[in-house]
C-alpha cells in the first residue's frame, strides 16, 4: 500500500494510450480469476436469487424434471414465520444467538491474545521462541479434527473434562464423579426469555477460545514489537505508571493492528460451521444452531433447495449489515489514530 501510494507523484504523467494498455494488461491477468469466479461464484449467487422465488425441491433435481413453480416471497415468509420442518427452528432466536456467539468469542480471543502477547513480550523472558511455536499449534489443526476432539473432551462418559472435574471434586470435596452431559444437557444455564445459553454454549466457547486466541496473539505480538522503545522511556520520564503507559503507548499501537483482526475474527466465528455441527450438533433442542448450520441442514437433510436459497439471501444481508457496521467502526478508530 505504501509503495503504491508514494509512487504516482514521482512518475511522469502517462498518456491515454499507456493507460488503456495497462487496463488491458490488467484484465489479461484477471481473466482466469474472473472466469472462474463468474462461473462458480457470481452466477450461482444470481441463480440462487431466482431459486429463492421458486419451490425448487428434490423432484426438480431429476434429469428432464419439470421447471419449479414461481412462488414469490413464500420461502422468505416461511423462514420468518418459522414454518420449517427443522425441529426447534426459530429464526430470530438463532440470529440473536449467532450474534452473541460471535461477539463473546471475539472478546475472549482479543483479551487473551493481547495478554499472552504482553507476557511473551516481557524483556528477558526465556524460551520465547519455544512458547510462540507451541502456542500457534491450534491454528494448524484442521477444524473438523478440532471439533471432533473437543466433542470427545466433553463426552459425558469418556471425556477428559468430566474426568478432570471428577478428580478435582473427589480430592477437594469427596464428591461423586462428575457426569455432566455438556453437549446435550437440556436445562439452560442462562435463559432470558427466548434467549438461551445452554451448557453446550460454554463447551463450544471453550473449544473456540482455545482455537482462536493464538492467532490474535501472533498479530498482537507483531504490533507490540513495532512500538519504539523510546516512547516508553519518554512516558516514564513523565512519571507514567504501567497502566498509563499501557493506555497511552501500547493501546494506540495495538488498536489499528488488532481491529481488522477482530472484524475478521467476528465474521469467521459468526460463520463457524464445524464446532456447532460436530460438537453439539446444534443441540440441545437447536439452541446452539447457527445460521450456517441451518443453511446446511436445509440442503443436506431437508432437500429444501429453494428455502435454503432464501435463507442464504437472508444471511447475505445480515453479513452485509455486519460488514457495514464493522467498517464504520474501523473507520472511526482509524480517524481517532490519525
Amino acid at each position, binding site marked *: 500500500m505504501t509503495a503504491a501510494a508514494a509512487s504516482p507523484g514521482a512518475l511522469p504523467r502517462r498518456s491515454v494510450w499507456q493507460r488503456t494498455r495497462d487496463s488491458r494488461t490488467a484484465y489479461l491477468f484477471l481473466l482466469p480469476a474472473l472466469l472462474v469466479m463468474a462461473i462458480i461464484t457470481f452466477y450461482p449467487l444470481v*441463480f440462487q436469487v431466482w431459486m429463492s422465488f421458486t419451490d425448487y425441491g428434490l423432484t426438480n433435481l431429476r434429469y428432464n424434471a419439470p421447471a419449479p413453480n414461481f412462488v414469490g416471497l413464500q420461502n422468505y415468509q416461511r423462514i420468518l414465520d418459522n414454518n420449517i420442518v427443522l425441529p426447534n427452528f426459530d429464526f430470530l432466536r438463532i440470529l440473536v444467538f449467532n450474534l452473541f456467539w460471535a461477539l463473546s468469542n471475539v472478546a475472549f480471543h482479543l483479551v487473551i491474545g493481547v495478554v499472552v502477547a504482553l507476557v511473551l513480550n516481557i524483556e528477558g523472558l526465556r524460551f520465547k521462541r519455544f512458547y510462540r511455536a507451541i502456542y500457534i499449534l491450534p491454528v494448524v*489443526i484442521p477444524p473438523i479434527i478440532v471439533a471432533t476432539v473437543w466433542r470427545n473432551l466433553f463426552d459425558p462418559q*469418556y471425556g477428559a473434562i468430566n474426568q478432570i472435574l471428577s478428580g478435582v471434586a473427589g480430592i477437594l470435596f469427596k464428591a461423586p464423579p462428575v457426569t455432566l452431559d455438556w453437549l446435550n444437557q437440556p436445562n439452560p444455564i442462562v435463559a432470558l426469555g427466548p434467549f438461551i445459553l445452554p451448557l453446550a454454549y460454554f463447551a463450544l466457547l471453550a473449544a473456540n477460545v482455545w482455537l482462536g486466541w493464538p492467532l490474535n496473539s501472533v*498479530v498482537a505480538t507483531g504490533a507490540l514489537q513495532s512500538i519504539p522503545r523510546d516512547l516508553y522511556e519518554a512516558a516514564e520520564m513523565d512519571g507514567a505508571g504501567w497502566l498509563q503507559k499501557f493506555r497511552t503507548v501500547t493501546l494506540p499501537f495495538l488498536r489499528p493492528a488488532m481491529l481488522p483482526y477482530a472484524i475478521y475474527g467476528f465474521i469467521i466465528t459468526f460463520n463457524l460451521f464445524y464446532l456447532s455441527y460436530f460438537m453439539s450438533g446444534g443441540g440441545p433442542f437447536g439452541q446452539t444452531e447457527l445460521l450456517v448450520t441451518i443453511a446446511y441442514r436445509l440442503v443436506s437433510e431437508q432437500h429444501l433447495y429453494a428455502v435454503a436459497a432464501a435463507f442464504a439471501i437472508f444471511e447475505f444481508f445480515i453479513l452485509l449489515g455486519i*460488514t457495514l457496521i464493522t467498517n464504520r467502526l474501523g473507520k472511526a478508530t482509524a480517524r481517532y489514530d490519525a
Partner: protein
Amino acid sequence: MSRPLADAHIAGRRRPGRFGRQLVLQLICIAIAVTVLFPMVWILAMSLDPRNISRPDSLFPPGASLDAYARVIARPTLNPVSFARLALNSVIIALLISAASVSIGVLAAYAFSRLRFRGREILMIAILAVLMLPAVAALAPLFVMLGKFQFGTFNLRSSLFGVALAVTASQLPFAIWNIKGYLDTIPKELEEAATVDGAGRFQAFRYVILPLATPVLAVTAFFGFIAGWTEFQFSFLFLVGDTNLWTLSMALNGMVGQYAASTPWSQFAAFAILVALPVMVVYMFLQRYIVSGLAIGGVKG
C-alpha cells in the same frame, strides 16, 4: 510488569532477584502451554490405548500400542473402502484447490496490487464481499448447478472435481487477498528497474515478482491444501453415494457423526492424528513463512 521492561537493558539481564520473576513468568507460560497442548496429548494417549472403546482414563495408557492405527488403516469405515483410497481422494481434492487458487490467485493479485485500471475498485469490493460469505451460502445453487453437468455416467457434482470446484469458489477470494496483501509490501522500484532494462509487464511479473512472492505463494498453497484435505461440507453432500469417492473427513464424520451410535474413541483418535499429522508436519517446515505471511497479509490487506 513494566518497570523491568525499561531498566532491563541498563542493568543487564542477569541480576540477583531476577530469578523469582523469571520463575513466575516461566510458570505462567508453561501453564498456557499445558492448556494448548492438553487436547493434543489427550488424543494421542487415547489413540495409543489398547482397550479401544473403553474409557480412556490416563495420559499414559497401560500397554500402549499402535493397534488402533492398524485397525483404522485396515478398515477406516464400515464400507469396503481402504484408507489409501480415502487419503488419495482427499489429496486429489486438496491439490486441485491448492493449484487452482494459487495460480489463478497470483495473477489476479498482481493486477490488483500493481495495475490501475477501470473497474478495479468494484472488482475488489466484489471479491471482498465473496470472502465474507461462508461456503455454505452457495450450497443450494452449486448443488443444483453442478448436478446438471452429466456426461454419460459422469456427473460433475458427484465427482472429486466438482467438490474441488465448489471449494475453490470460496478459497480463491482468500488467495487473491492474501497474495495481494503481500505483493503490496514488495517495493515497486524493483519492477521499475526491470522495466527500465526493457522487461515487459509479464517479464517483470515472471522474473521479479514471482520469485519474491514465493513465501506467500507457499502459504496460500498450504491453506488451499488444508481446505481441501479436510473439506467436509461439500464432499459429504456431493459424494455420499459412491463410497469409492469418500474422503478422510467423511470417514471421520462416520465415526463420530450423529448417526454413529457408539464412537470407537481409540480408532477415532488414531484416525484424527493420521489426518492432522501431515498438516502439522508441513506447518513446522513452513512456520516462519506462515506467521509472517499471515501477519503481513492481515495487517496490510
